[in-house]
């Protein structure tokens, strides 16, 4: 997007004839959040990452849950008042988990199908096909994963094994800078930005010629890294590379490529990942309450940590174990798992998944099933008990029966058909589209994409504007609260407060005063609709 017109900075105390932004209570705000609310984007720095890498990975959430539930059993059966939940005594429950955790470790298989370390001439020739292929070069965004020793693991475009040399160069760059006790963060070359993230034994590289800022690329690489952890766990990843520095990780990731592909596509189209916030399927709060209660009543099970329903990348409900919150980044990985896996539609599934923000050291087991014939309403039951499939399957049948009895499944389907809502419904003439994030609940809302944003190219341009606005308003060192930007085809207004982030797109001719009036009106509209657009009560087992 050409930066036509001047980006303008407004203070909150602008002249009243210019209009004034009323910083009222943030719509969608709740003290009783269901998701972990943290400002991941602002907090994501290379320094922070380096510090984090020094610390041992926070471990044991899963152990704690199992210990807690075994204590619960104890307290019911014998000593009701004397249980010290924080006692470090090893309970039988923990021991058994330790044992099973051991079994679950992924270990590299020692056989002879290793990819050779040296690159022979024939390979280079093949490689030239990809890296010199104009179509490949023209891709807007590349993402690569390679091992610290330079072995290709994943490439978004082209076949990673045909990109041996280019990955070798990346590894050389990273280690060259590392040798100087420094860290390679990003390179700008012409139109392209190269962003590097080195974590554990992996090097992740993002290359873009789009609107993404370095910081935004870094966030995307974090998601990709978390996706690796989600498939393998942090403990296994470390163990594997400690045993064999040269290990070909692709072997353990076969079949998982689609998770990376899908995640990267989601990141280019779903604003939720950028905002580290989730979108809820609009529903009357009474219906949502019925759904949550159906889960609570039928799935109050010892080791069940989270139960959630997802529809078209949107959250319908989330019930959680007391004390444990789901992080929006983890929720996006769950959404991505569902979104990328056609095979869940054929049968009830039982699959391990690691939620890196929750506990990077181990897996939880997910019972995944669809509740409707069209396979749109997906129920996930996440448990730390790996033998609970049939208990959860039974719980699922009861939940489904109750949702049908109370017409809740029908209400969900109606909401899907109705689509979200049109910008017009907000009653603001010049407003074309917006993103609104309630920070305390890590949820966001936005209307359907309508004209002029119906074609993919236009949608991509709109997304690019949001990236630009988001970047400008978050640029560290010069944090803006409000940004008014007049572009060639539209005018943008971004506003960030303690309670919310708002990004609004108007027609090109709107004045600053009208835009401010419009935004105030929009906030009042969202406030009126907040019960439907957000989940404001947290339901626990």
């Amino acid at each position, binding site marked *: 997007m050409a930066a036509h017109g001047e980006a303008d900075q407004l203070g909150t105390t602008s002249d009243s004839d210019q209009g004034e932004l009323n910083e009222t209570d943030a719509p969608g705000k709740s003290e009783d959040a269901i998701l972990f609310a943290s400002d991941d984007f602002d907090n994501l720095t290379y320094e922070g990452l380096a510090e984090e890498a020094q610390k041992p990975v926070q471990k044991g959430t899963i152990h704690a849950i199992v210990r807690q539930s075994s204590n619960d059993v104890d307290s019911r059966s014998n000593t009701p008042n004397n249980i010290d939940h924080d006692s470090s005594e090893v309970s039988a429950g923990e021991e058994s988990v330790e044992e099973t955790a051991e079994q*679950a470790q992924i*270990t590299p298989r020692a056989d002879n199908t290793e990819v050779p370390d040296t690159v022979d001439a024939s390979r280079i020739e093949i490689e030239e096909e990809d890296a010199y292929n104009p179509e490949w070069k023209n891709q807007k965004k590349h993402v690569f994963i390679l091992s610290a020793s330079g072995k290709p693991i994943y490439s978004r475009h082209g076949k990673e094994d045909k990109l041996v040399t280019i990955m070798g160069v990346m590894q050389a760059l990273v280690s060259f800078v590392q040798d100087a006790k420094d860290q390679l963060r990003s390179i700008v070359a012409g139109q392209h930005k190269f962003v590097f993230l080195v974590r554990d034994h992996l090097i992740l590289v993002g290359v873009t010629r789009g609107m993404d800022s370095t910081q935004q690329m870094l966030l995307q690489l974090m998601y990709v890294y978390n996706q690796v952890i989600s498939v393998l766990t942090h403990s296994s990843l470390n163990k594997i590379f400690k045993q064999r520095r040269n290990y070909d990780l692709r072997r353990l990731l*076969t079949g998982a490529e689609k998770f990376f592909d899908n995640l990267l596509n989601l990141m280019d189209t779903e604003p939720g990942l950028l905002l580290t916030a989730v979108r809820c399927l609009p529903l009357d709060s009474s219906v949502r309450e019925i759904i949550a209660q159906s889960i609570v009543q039928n799935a109050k099970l010892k080791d069940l940590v989270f139960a959630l329903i997802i529809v078209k990348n949107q959250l319908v409900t989330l019930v959680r174990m007391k004390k444990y919150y789901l992080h929006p980044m983890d929720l996006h990985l769950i959404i991505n798992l569902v979104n990328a896996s056609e*095979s869940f539609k054929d049968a009830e599934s*039982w699959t391990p998944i690691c939620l890196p923000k929750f506990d990077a050291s181990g897996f939880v087991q997910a019972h995944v099933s669809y509740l409707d014939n069209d396979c749109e309403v997906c129920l996930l039951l996440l448990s730390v008990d790996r033998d609970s499939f*049939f208990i959860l399957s039974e719980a699922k049948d009861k939940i489904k029966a109750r949702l049908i009895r109370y017409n809740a499944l029908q209400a969900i389907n109606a909401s899907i058909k109705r689509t979200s809502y049109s910008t017009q419904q907000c009653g603001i003439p010049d407003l074309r589209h917006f993103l609104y994030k309630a920070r305390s609940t890590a949820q966001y809302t936005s209307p359907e994409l309508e004209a002029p944003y119906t074609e993919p190219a236009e949608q991509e341009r709109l997304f690019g504007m949001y990236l630009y606005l988001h970047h400008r308003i978050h640029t560290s060192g010069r944090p803006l609260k409000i940004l008014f930007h007049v572009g060639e085809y539209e005018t943008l207004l971004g506003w960030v407060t303690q309670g919310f982030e708002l990004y609004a797109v108007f027609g090109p001719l709107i004045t600053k005063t009208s835009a401010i009036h419009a935004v105030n009106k929009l906030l009042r509209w969202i406030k009126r609709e907040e019960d439907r657009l957000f989940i404001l009560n947290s339901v626990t087992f």
Partner: protein
Amino acid sequence: MASNKVDAKVVLLGKSYAGKTCLVERYLKDRFLGETVPYQNTIGAAYGAKTVNIDGHSIVIGIWDTAGSERYEAMSRIYYRGAKAAILCFDLTDKSSFDRIRFWIGELHQHEENCKIYLCATKCDLVEENPERRAVQDSVAKALAKDCMANIYETSSKTGKNIDELFEKIAEDYVKEKVAADELEQEAIRIAEIGRKAHCPCS
């Protein structure tokens, strides 16, 4: 993993792309979508069940279709624990899938002594259509089956060949074993009762 509703737990194991999901799909839903739907690897494992009648016994078989990707191997025990039968699948057109079978045999011998093994050579329609595609010789496969005292079936999910036969055999073997075990138990009870009667002074 046990459920009181399931009588016989059956698990499918084998390399990715060997044809496990298609086999189960053919058996449970009597269809083959391989021609129209692109390959979708299984995530974790999928569960399905079917009730069959064998000699007047109605039994429920619970089938676990596991994912073949290597990263699940370390966790495969959750899926095969307590299984009465394991179907080890290999693709007749892929030698490496056959080489993997020994691993599963070892794994089951070590952890699930009571699990009966059935070898399943999949995609036989492909080698019937074009014998040159055969990568695993019949004699070699049979030798392995003999080695581990397993039955071996050549199946095609596309044509349905031998699939009902395979599951029927599993169900029959299960019923046979169960009847034998029940008889043994009855016998034990009878003996115990005789013993009790002999010792009871009041009778």
